[in-house]
């Protein structure tokens, strides 16, 4: 039942009196009205701004926060009002919904802030009134697309290199040349050869001076035929090699073969092979010459190298309907005017307008305001229609052009925005990371100053001391205490990055000494047994990677067996370390690296608490 009718329910119940005389059975007893006084004002204090309304108003929609007993959780005894620590500006709209039954979306508010408020107050956004619903949906879709773009960019940028197959690695190198130096080199080399090839095609046709025993001027292509042939061969070799590599690396070969770029590649190299196959026959030489024209398509290969070119192509594709309209209207106009001009000029002597198709040329040249002057009307009628033709040409062309321009501008700005966001994101990530590191460093300081003593009582005292000093605000000290509890719970400790990495190196060296493949090589196994989401967020990787997660807190395992040699021995016994991926300790994205021996002997030794830094198995955790 819609909430708005709640106020009319008494009327509906009263109207039931019409059934009473005709009823043949006794009526059921009405429910007892528990809350006698439904009357009364309610004061809603939202971050200091006081709103007042009738209790009835709020109870119109009993499945929302304000209309149900859920609001009692926010009742503030001392001031006898309901206090909400939320945004008062948006709350105004929410309260208006109760009053009028219509929910409006204020255009100047951020869409996600608004959504959050609605979710908090238990109002579904679908009841936004018609006046505002479209705007709301548009903004929401735009926001979602933007976030999705960001995520995709994240994905494409942040996949770790360790866990790709060679084929995937190759494909990624092709698609994103900035990922590795080799890919970049290849990228530039191919670009260079494309340029060379195109220039060779152009220079081939330049007249190069007379041969001594010929009278005709030779083009450079004929004079230095061998040189050009070698150049062409070299370019085509490279292009073929590149194409085959791409074909091999493509995740879906069929889809790759259908894509535009691959078609361009094929068209670029085909003429050469066809030329090889065909003999220098007179009959086919004409066709052969035509094929050479296709070599100029190599210039389109540049679109892999230039984003602007891709945008242009995309724009034209997206404006296909406008272009089609332009073409169609021009065709119509051309036919009309050509016919008119033909019949107008039919009478004049030595007229160039020999047929209607011949007049097409005149019409096109006139409508596009080129005016070569090779065909001009001589009769007066012809001149009159010629001027009408040129005037209308301007109009017909000017109409669809703004649409194309605006499309191009929109797409271009979108791509610029994507670039900008990518650049901004790096700096944002760096700043956030710095802030997080400051936080963890504060915790390190807290630990080092207070809690390094191994004995529990000592640490307690130190903790008390620390508390009495009270240099840090209560929030922070509670946070630190929490982290400390966590450490105690898991028998692991927090360390900073340098220590972690040095210990990493130590492990690898230890493992090599123990005739095992390096722990780092075992990391693929490690990450492969984690879910894909972990792969994105967490990283167990070499120190070289620096483009990953937003924050890391390293956890060092504290093996209860303290001697290094025994651990070594155990490692050697096992033949290696098993990698546990269970996430029972800290966060779901944590990854631990623990020899099985530790847990078994964990119960044996008491909580000595001494940390041996040298033999720690370091794991890296990304904090959620």
């Amino acid at each position, binding site marked *: *039942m819609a909430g*708005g009718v709640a106020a009319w329910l*008494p009327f509906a119940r*009263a109207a039931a009196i019409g059934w009473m*005389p005709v009823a043949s059975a006794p009526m059921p007893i009405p429910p007892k009205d528990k809350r006698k006084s439904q009357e009364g004002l309610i004061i809603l204090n939202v971050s200091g701004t006081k709103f007042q309304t009738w209790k009835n108003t709020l109870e119109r929609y009993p499945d929302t926060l304000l209309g149900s007993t859920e609001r009692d959780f926010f009742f503030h005894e001392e001031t006898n009002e309901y206090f909400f620590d939320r945004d008062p500006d948006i709350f105004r709209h929410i309260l208006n919904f109760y009053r009028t039954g219509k929910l409006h979306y204020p255009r100047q508010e951020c869409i996600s802030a608004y959504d959050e408020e609605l979710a908090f107050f238990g109002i579904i956004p679908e009841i936004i009134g018609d006046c505002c619903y479209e705007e709301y949906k548009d903004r929401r879709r735009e926001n979602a697309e933007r976030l999705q773009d960001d995520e995709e960019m994240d994905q494409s940028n942040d996949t770790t290199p360790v866990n790709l197959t060679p084929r995937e690695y190759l494909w990624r190198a092709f698609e994103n040349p900035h990922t590795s130096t080799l890919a970049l080199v290849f990228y530039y080399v191919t670009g260079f050869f494309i340029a060379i090839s195109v220039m060779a095609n152009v220079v081939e046709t330049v007249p190069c001076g007379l041969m001594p025993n010929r009278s005709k001027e030779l083009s450079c292509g004929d004079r230095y035929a061998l040189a050009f042939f070698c150049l062409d061969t070299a370019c085509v070799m490279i292009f073929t090699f590149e194409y085959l590599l791409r074909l091999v690396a493509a995740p879906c070969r069929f889809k790759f073969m259908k894509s535009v770029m691959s078609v361009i590649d094929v068209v670029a190299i085909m003429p050469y092979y066809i030329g090889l196959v065909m003999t220098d026959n007179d009959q086919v030489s004409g066709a052969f010459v035509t094929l050479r024209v296709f070599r100029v398509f190599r210039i389109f290969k540049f679109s892999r190298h230039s984003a602007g070119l891709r945008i242009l192509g995309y724009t034209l594709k997206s404006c296909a309907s406008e272009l089609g309209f332009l073409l169609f209207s021009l065709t119509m106009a051309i036919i009309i005017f050509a016919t008119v001009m033909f019949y107008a000029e039919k009478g004049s002597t030595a007229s160039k307008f020999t047929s209607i198709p011949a007049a097409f040329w005149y019409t096109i040249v006139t409508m596009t305001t080129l005016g070569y002057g090779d065909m001009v009307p001589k009769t007066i009628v012809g001149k009159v229609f010629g001027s009408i033709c040129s005037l209308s040409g301007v109009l017909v062309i000017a109409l669809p052009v703004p649409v194309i321009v605006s499309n191009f501008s929109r797409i271009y700005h979108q791509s610029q925005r994507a670039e900008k966001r990518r650049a901004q994101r790096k700096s944002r990530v760096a700043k956030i990371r710095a802030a997080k590191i400051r936080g963890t460093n504060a915790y390190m300081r807290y630990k080092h100053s207070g809690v390094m003593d191994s004995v529990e009582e000592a640490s307690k005292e130190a903790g008390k001391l620390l508390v009495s000093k009270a240099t840090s605000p209560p929030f922070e000290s509670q946070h630190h205490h929490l982290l400390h509890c966590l450490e105690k719970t898991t028998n692991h400790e927090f360390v900073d990055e340098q220590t972690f990495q040095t210990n990493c190196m130590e492990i690898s060296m230890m493992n090599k000494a123990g005739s095992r493949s390096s722990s780092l090589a075992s990391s693929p196994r490690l990450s492969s047994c984690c879910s894909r989401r972990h792969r994105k967020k967490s990283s167990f990787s070499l120190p070289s990677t620096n483009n990953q997660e937003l924050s890391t807190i390293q956890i060092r395992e504290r093996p209860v067996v303290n001697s290094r040699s025994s651990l070594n021995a155990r490692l050697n016994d096992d033949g290696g370390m098993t990698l546990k991926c269970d996430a029972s300790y800290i966060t779901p994205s944590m990854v631990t690296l623990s020899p099985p021996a530790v847990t078994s002997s964990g119960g044996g030794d008491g909580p000595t608490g001494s940390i041996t830094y040298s033999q720690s198995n370091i794991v890296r955790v990304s904090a959620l």
Partner: protein
Amino acid sequence: MKTKNRDQSLSDSRELDGSYDQLTDSIEDDFELSTVCHRPESMDKLQDQTKFTKKELQVLYRGFKNCGCSLLCLCFVPQECPSGVVNEENFKTIYSQFFPQGDSSMYAHFLFEAFDTDKNGSVSFEDFVFGLSIILRGTINDRLNWAFNLYDLNKDGCITKEEMLDIMKSIYDMMGKCTYPNMQDEAPREHVENFFQKMDRNKDGVVTIEEFIESCQKDENIMQSMQLFDNVI
């Protein structure tokens, strides 16, 4: 403040304005009509005329004035919603919200006829409050009178079988199709027969007001159920 008749207020404004144009009048009429606001009589007067307290009148009025408009917007019904009065379409829409599984339009129509005492096609707040006052605060006799008035569709003082059949059908329509046991087509008619057997003393085929009141007073069930909704407001 006296409640003006809609036409009356319109002609007043025309005189004052002096811009009355016969040719274009019809179009402006519509716009003007929709913005004519109907204000009810003062609360003191209403309090004298009905048996509601001030607080109850306040609650009733707020519900009447607000929800008349907002509810329709919720139902996506694009209709004019003059503030202060409820017309039959609104009435039907509001009532149908309470009976989603059946068709309550006929019964709502009869109710509308019963509430709209001055027969001007819309239920003003006074009509509304007067009606409710009788139902909720009146004596048993008053209520029985009101119910009789509801059944007597042509207001000629007696209920015929056809009128009763219409009423009965409208009540059964509100149940909808999904009932247990299954709704038979003959159910209303049978019910009407039973009703007339009980009420029609002199077996003349119609039920007059005296017969009605007398028969109801003899029936314990009816007397009890008449008092069921005393505490609705």
